[in-house]
């Protein structure tokens, strides 16, 4: 055994403290899901009301296309959060990492075949670029979930930080989009593609960049 390795082992063993146990989460994910869903919808509602005076669109909830989209977004939220947590625990088998992406593709397909407002394809440019408002509300509504998940993952050991960041932020952003869709006045296909679905991937990519910066579990702790 070479000396540096021996010294390292001695230094690691010197002041060894009992390590904190990982939270055994059986049904706690359900509690967190309800909390963050409620919080996301509340924040989206408040910001939509105060920033642009948008109100809750109650008639929309009877539309099957809308409902299936919301359900798929909810599943994206759940699966990507699960994948992120699994990727952040060494040794856990993670066979379902493609599921959130497949669900996103399913949303894409529903949007492509939907008849819901599909006749308005050619919209005015100013109206189209006004969609940034949706992005801002998505961002606000996804913040609590993003912060909470990032905190939870920092307590684990994310081996592939960029991948964990990707799925963490995809999860939070899908919750944000889900909340937004109850309030957004335009459910035009083009606006949905560009300002509702694409920001999911944009925020997920941002997360994959941020993940490498914020999770420092593999550095030497002084």
């Amino acid at each position, binding site marked *: *055994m*070479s000396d*540096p*390795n021996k010294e*390292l*082992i*001695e230094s*690691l*063993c*010197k002041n*060894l*403290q*009992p*390590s*904190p*146990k*990982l939270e055994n989460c059986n049904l706690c994910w359900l509690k967190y899901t309800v909390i963050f869903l409620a919080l996301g919808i509340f924040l989206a509602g408040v910001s939509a009301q105060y920033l642009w005076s948008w109100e809750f669109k109650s008639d929309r909830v009877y539309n099957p296309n809308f409902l299936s989209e919301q359900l798929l977004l909810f599943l994206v939220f759940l699966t990507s959060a699960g994948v992120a947590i699994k990727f952040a*625990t*060494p*040794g*856990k*088998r993670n066979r379902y990492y493609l599921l959130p992406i497949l669900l996103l593709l399913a949303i894409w397909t529903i949007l492509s075949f939907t008849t819901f407002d599909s006749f308005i394809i050619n919209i005015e440019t100013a109206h189209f670029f006004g969609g940034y408002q949706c992005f801002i509300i998505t961002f606000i509504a996804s913040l609590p979930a993003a912060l909470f998940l990032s905190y939870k993952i920092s307590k*684990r*050991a994310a*081996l*592939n930080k960029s991948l964990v960041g990707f799925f963490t932020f995809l999860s939070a952003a899908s919750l944000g989009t889900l909340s937004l869709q109850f309030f957004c006045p335009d459910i035009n296909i083009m606006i949905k593609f560009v300002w509702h679905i694409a920001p999911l991937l944009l925020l997920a990519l941002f997360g994959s960049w941020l993940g490498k910066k914020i999770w420092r*579990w*593999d*550095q*030497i*702790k002084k």
Partner: protein
Amino acid sequence: MLYSRLTMGVCFYKVSLSTDRGYRAMSQWSQLMAKAQQGDNRSYSQLLTELLQYLKPYVLGKVKRDELADDIIQNVLLSIHNARHTFNTEKDFKPWLMAIVNNRILDYWRKHKRKFEKEVSIDNFSLDGAASDITNIELELFEKALTHLNENQKAIFKLINIDGLSIPEVAKQLQMTESAVRVNAHRSFKRIQKEFL
């Protein structure tokens, strides 16, 4: 036919023996880690020492370079230490360990990819004769430049560039602060660069 059956039998015996030994080691490591999670120094030290012996040939087989393997193993030991709370004592130890090891190897390759691509081997590099890339004029210039450095700067230059020590190691050896070593190294580089330009 008989020979092939015999060899197959011997191979099977060897494999089963090694997997049995491996299984025993794994279950023992799992128990040692469980004790380490409760703060038992001895078990932890035993575990890390055994892991060191197990990991060395594995990592060396992957990276083929001794000094790299040592660096990676140290990173792996640090990662195991920082992630020890994530090991579930009811589960197998090996998947947990190998997930960390393989990711540390990948990280290392990613981080140093550019460095390895640009690295030139000095094994075939000699200072004498026509094979050398350094001309006599350059050598004279280099020696002249060295005379302009003070003793401290010469020592730092030698330790960093010839002996290949890192800045913290040089600081420890010369009993200086790391920032003082950095400043002196920078000044000596600038001085030598000036002579060449």
